[in-house]
Structure formats: C-alpha cells, structure tokens
C-alpha cells in the first residue's frame, strides 16, 4: 500500500531532488542480473582498450531507475508511476554524483485518479545532463480522492 501522495501540487511544483553517488560494484550486480555482456560496465581494461575513461559506464537502466526513484518517492510509492519517457543524452561514470529532479508541467483528472505530468532530468553534478524526458505520476488515486 502506498503512502498518500503529495499535497498542494500545482503546475510548477518541484519534485524534491535526489542525489546519489554511482557505485561501480552495483554495476557489476546489474550486469549479472541483466546477463549483460557489455564490458564497458565492469571491465576497466576493456575501457582502456577502447580509448575511454577507465571508470566504468553506468547502465542505462540504473540511470533510469534513479530518476524513477525520485519521482515515485515524491508521488507516494513505486506503484504511482504510469508513464516514463526519456532520452539518453550522455554517460554517467563510476564515482559521479547524479541529481534526479523534475517539475510538474500539467495536471489531469483520469479514471485512475489525479495525474501529474512532469518534465524530468538526471544530471551529473558538475557535468552534463544524462537523461531528459517526461513522466506521468498518479498523485491521488481514485480511492484516496473519495476518502478526502
């Protein structure tokens, strides 16, 4: 069961930012979970042979996941994400600090309840934007709306 969604949401409301430090050991676990053979996520020797920074490159799903975590914590639970659209604009490397954030751009009443559409992004602190996109979050399900 989710906690209640955020109160007083309006266009322009900010999703509280979430900052995380990217841990290369987590990339190894994710590579195993995905059966992902791509060596840029764990093999520093392979990165050097490709002429790249030898810090492993974070998996796209991890970058997406950080952003989804920030959004769903704000919305009241992991079951509140209805739609998520992102474009991968840059890499995130081991040791980077990333900042997930968003802003409400529209509100809709739907058959599932009140939905907030947000512009969202994941930035490398002191660096470039890694992900940009939009997301739809259920901030007040129909059953909770009926209670209030």
């Amino acid at each position: 069961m989710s906690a209640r969604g955020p109160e007083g949401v309006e266009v322009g409301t900010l999703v509280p930012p979430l900052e995380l430090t990217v841990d290369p050991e987590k990339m190894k676990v994710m590579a195993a979970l995905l059966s992902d053979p791509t060596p840029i996520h764990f093999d520093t020797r392979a990165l050097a042979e490709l002429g790249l920074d030898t810090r492993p490159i974070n998996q796209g799903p991890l970058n997406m996941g950080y952003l989804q975590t920030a959004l769903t914590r704000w919305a009241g639970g992991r079951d509140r994400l209805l739609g998520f659209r992102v474009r991968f604009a840059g890499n995130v490397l081991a040791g980077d600090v990333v900042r997930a954030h968003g802003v409400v751009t529209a509100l809709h009443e739907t058959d599932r309840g009140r939905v907030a559409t947000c512009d969202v992004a994941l930035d490398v602190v002191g660096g470039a934007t890694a992900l940009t996109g939009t997301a739809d979050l259920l901030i007040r399900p129909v059953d909770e709306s009926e209670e209030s």
Partner: protein
Amino acid sequence: MSEPVVEPVPLPEHQAQVGREFPGGTYALAPWRTWLVADTLLDDPWDEVPHPVLAWMAGVSGMGMTWDELFAWFDASATDGPMFGEHHTTLHRPLRTGATYDVSGRIVSVVRKVGRRAGTFDIVGYELDLHLEGAHVARCYNSIVFPRRGAA
C-alpha cells in the same frame, strides 16, 4: 546522442528485421530479484512493491534471447559499444512481487543516421509487452544505438 544529425539514411539490409518477433517467454519477479534491483539502485530493498525499472528488466530478461543474439540480428556485438537511445514505459497496472509475467516483443524500427562528430550509427527500436493472467500490464519501448565505425 545530442549532436545535430543530417537526414536519416534508409538501411535496407536491416529493414527486413522490422516486425520480427522475439521468441518471448516468462519472467518471475522473485523476491530476491526485486531486492537486488532496489539495492543496485541505492533504493529501499525491503519495499514490497517492485521498483518500476523492473518492467523493462522483465521484458528484456524474458524476451527469449540473449543480448548477443539480439545484437547479431544487426551484425553487431557487445564490443561495438551499443548504447541506449530512448526509452518509454507505460504501466497499465502496478508490478507485483512474486508474479510471473508473460513476455512478448518485436523490432519496430531500424534507421541509419550520420552525426557530424559521432559518424554513422544505426538506431534500432524494439518494444516489449508484459502480460499477467491475460491482462496487459506494461509496454516498454527502447532504442539501441549501434556505432557503425567505418560505414559510409
């Protein structure tokens, strides 16, 4: 891929893959999986609701083929450095820990582009559907960018 690109170039040798279905299969959101995925995301592993990134993970893990096999459909390999391009997830219903999802999917697009700095690359779009007891739970679209070093 943020740099400007010139007009897309048709890619006839791989266009035949558009519409090709993945073998498909199933994927179980076993508690150990949901725990480890949340932990890799530095999120709460004890939350009983699966992290939404598992919609995509369930799709690719249950599509019935390996990444190497998928890359080979496009004459590419993991050592070419394939990258994520875009991603869309639509969740019609929340994910459930312990549920086993039926997975199906297909290639939906193949486009070649040329960037001023990145050179030639191919963008392959695919979508994956999750069903549970006949109900459509989620659809994920993703694109993979394949660098084509040395291509015209």
